[in-house]
């Protein structure tokens, strides 16, 4: 599904160049729920932005279903973003002037799809994530958890190959965060959605099938969830403790 091969990315600040990603390689399979964790500055968000085609990268290759993303022109990238990728941002990125239902419809509206199908799909997703009763409300009138579930529904509108989530629970309390992770799991189970999530939250990551740990711009290690969530959380916390300088 998603392959990242020998990816390099650096930022220029004045005359200095900082290498943020160094030879990053990994793969995400269809229907997998993968998290990326690591200390601040380890390159998680930069990696996500490269996969999203939001920022260019220096060297390497990112392929989505066999398509090399760096070979695409602007129009093709837009098409990939709209049809193959779904996005969930930390601060929701909903349009304040549109209702919850309308926000969810945006990816299909961009494709100029017939409104009947569009609304039907949106309502299905809203019911799936428990936000059907707030369809006519505006983002400013609903809670953070509801906003993020709206963003998840929006990300799934075009049945994307991959959902890219940047700290989706970062701005939420634990209960709302759990509801959002629940939404990702439901999407995985019901729609076979593939999710690639950047997070700081070990609890959220413990629901994933696999966690990629990054450090200093490289993949430090990968942990696989064998089905026992609590044990996986324990394992995650231990690795992170070592990574952060603990014993």
């Amino acid at each position, binding site marked *: 599904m998603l392959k990242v091969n020998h990816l390099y990315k650096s930022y220029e600040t004045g005359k200095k160049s900082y290498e943020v990603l160094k030879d990053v390689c990994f793969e995400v399979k269809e229907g997998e729920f993968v998290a990326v964790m690591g200390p601040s500055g380890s390159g998680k968000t930069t990696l996500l*932005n490269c996969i*999203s085609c*939001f*920022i260019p990268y220096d060297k390497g290759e990112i392929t989505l279903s066999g398509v090399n993303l760096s070979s695409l022109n*602007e*129009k093709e990238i*837009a*098409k*990939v*973003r*709209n*049809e193959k*990728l779904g*996005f969930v*941002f930390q601060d929701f*990125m*909903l*349009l*304040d*002037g*549109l209702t919850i239902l*309308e926000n969810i*419809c*945006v*990816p*299909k*509206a*961009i494709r*100029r799809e017939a*409104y009947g199908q*569009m*609304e039907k799909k949106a309502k299905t997703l809203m019911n799936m994530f428990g936000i059907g009763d707030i369809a006519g409300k*505006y983002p400013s009138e609903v809670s953070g958890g509801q906003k993020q579930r709206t963003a998840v529904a*929006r990300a799934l509108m*075009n049945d994307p190959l991959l959902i890219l989530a940047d700290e989706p629970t970062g701005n939420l309390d634990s209960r709302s965060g759990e509801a959002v992770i629940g939404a990702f799991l439901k999407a995985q189970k019901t729609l076979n959605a593939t999710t690639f999530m950047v997070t700081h939250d070990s609890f959220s990551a413990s629901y994933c099938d696999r966690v990629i740990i990054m450090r200093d711009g490289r993949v430090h290690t990968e942990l696989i969830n064998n089905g026992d969530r609590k044990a996986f959380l324990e394992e995650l916390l231990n690795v992170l403790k070592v990574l952060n300088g603990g014993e």
Partner: protein
Amino acid sequence: MTLNVLWEKLRKRNKNDYRQFRFCIVFAAALISSYLMLIKSPLIEGALPEGGDSGKIVFLILGIAVTGCTVFVWYAVRLFLRYKSREIGIFLALGAERSMLGKALCVEMIKMTACCAMEGILSGAAGSFIIGKLLETVTRRYQEDAFAFTISGAIFSLLYGIVLVLLILALTVKAMRRANIMDVIYEQRKQEPLRKNVTKKYAFCGAVLVAAGIFLGYGLNQIAANLFGIFLGGWVNVFYLLAVIGLYQLLVYSVSCRQKGRNPQKYYNNLLYYGMMKFQGASVVRNMLVITLLLMGGLYALFYMPIMMSGSVSIVYEDEYSYRYLNDAGELTRRELETIAEETGTELLNYREGEFIRVTGSGIDRDADDSGRFIEDYYTDYAEYDCTSAAQYEKMTGIRLDIPKGGYYLIQFPDAKETIWFRFDDMDQLYAAREDIYLPMKYLGNTEYSALVITPDNGFGHGSRFVLNDGDYERLKDGLPEQKLETQVLFDTVDSDGEILFAKKIFKEFTLRMSEDMDVKEYYNLLKEERSAEAEKSETKGAFVDPENPLAERDWQYNPLLAPLREQQNVMGSAVRYLLFVYVAVICFAAAGISGYTRSQSVGIANRQFFEDMKKLGADRAYRIQIMKKQIRKIYVLPTALGVGLILGYSILILYMNDGVIKPYEVTVAGILVLLSTIIAGLQYILYRKSLKTAGRMLKFE
């Protein structure tokens, strides 16, 4: 549900952002089109002399107005695009094609701008109609033309509307071309740190630069000429740039100065505020500088009226009509004048005629060479001067002068001052043609009679008119041909409605009947022409005057003083100029206001997260409001104080430097300037309160 439908819904929901944007375009289009329609109307076109300085000023002001309006539209568009950038970024991130999105945005902006520009042009037309009719009523006595809309006024207004559409389109396209979605999404949180680490020395340097800039820009020419005899020229205005740099330094200091110093408590109390400024300082300083300069520009334009009024009260002419002609010209006789007066329903009063002679005399030519060095050349045959006798002078003016042989008085305005170009006593000998000798002459003083100072250079240089001893006068007159004898006519008329028509008829006849020697431009000097090399001869022969149009700009050495026409010119010229300067002032203040207001909103946009974090850290509402107030106060208080203070000081300096003293009426003028400054400062305060309210609403303090 299409993208256009979503776009439309967003527009309906975000009315406030659109309202502000629309207001700015309508306002700019209304100001410019009303100005254009006014200056292109027969009322104003008829009042402005063709090819004259007033006309140039009108177009200079138009340039300033267009620049000012375009600048604040540019500000408003940028702020609007900042609001839109989040929407654009989200659409892009969700897979909307840039070209499709750009097209939709451009179409929306073009439609909106075109509608607003049309609204503005229509409002401008209504405005110009009201102002035009008002002006027409006020100047009815002096002006025959009425206000009317013209095709050229409408076309130019439409052209400005098109310019606005193109400007907005260009800014929109530029905004859409940004490659990085992350930048677009986070555009609203863009930060521009001010890296300068400044000390009190930096601020002191700034203050010195401001003082030096004003001092050198305004006074260096006079100082150099007086002390070293060097004329430096117009380039010294470059020194004003020093004042702008100094102003920038002062503003940078005010924003980025953060030292514990002697009051560490204050430092810690303001810690958060300092922190915020650190990362927005560059743009804040830029805005503060623009606001300061705009306020200065606006106040300078507003001050023009009282300062000009103070200048115009100083000249009072003793006679309504004063003109001179060479005796070989078949000019109007008293009988003919009386006939014209009768035809036009008026009557001559206090009619006098006097005799002058044109005599060659010495003088000093002062100029600056290519290197700027001041040069003085004495010539025995400098110019042909107008000379009269003490007896003739008394007959014309009633002023008796006791002049010994070899002495002379210079006829001048009251309070006339010597300049670096002219001295009172430049002439020291006159040529007696019959005897073929030069009579030595001695300057005795000035005699004041404004109605006789109708010659070039305000009665200085080759335009000097002298009163001589009767005996000397007769010696000099002996042997002069008729074309060297001059008649001076002075009279008044009774107040009547026919005065303007009478003056126009006289002007026409007087102009048509001029002799060959009178057909010269104001700066024609026969003797200077004779001593100049062939290649350097000026083209001052052939007067530039239209007998049919006394209001047209003219260049004529024998230009008559006809009070009703002069009054007509003055009233219309002043009314038009005042009106135009008010336009400039309004534009500058509007641009300063919009600039301050939009910056205040940027404070809200850029710091939303900061205030949210402060809340999480336990800062209560009052504390957060206080921080916000400090930020917004910075944008208003210092620029207003600096702008008002500097321009007020500069204007009072001009009043003083004009004649080296502050006269009683200039104290009144200074009082008016202070009052105007206070009103503008008050307006800035109202805007500050409004900005606080808007930013508070944005940050949810209400």
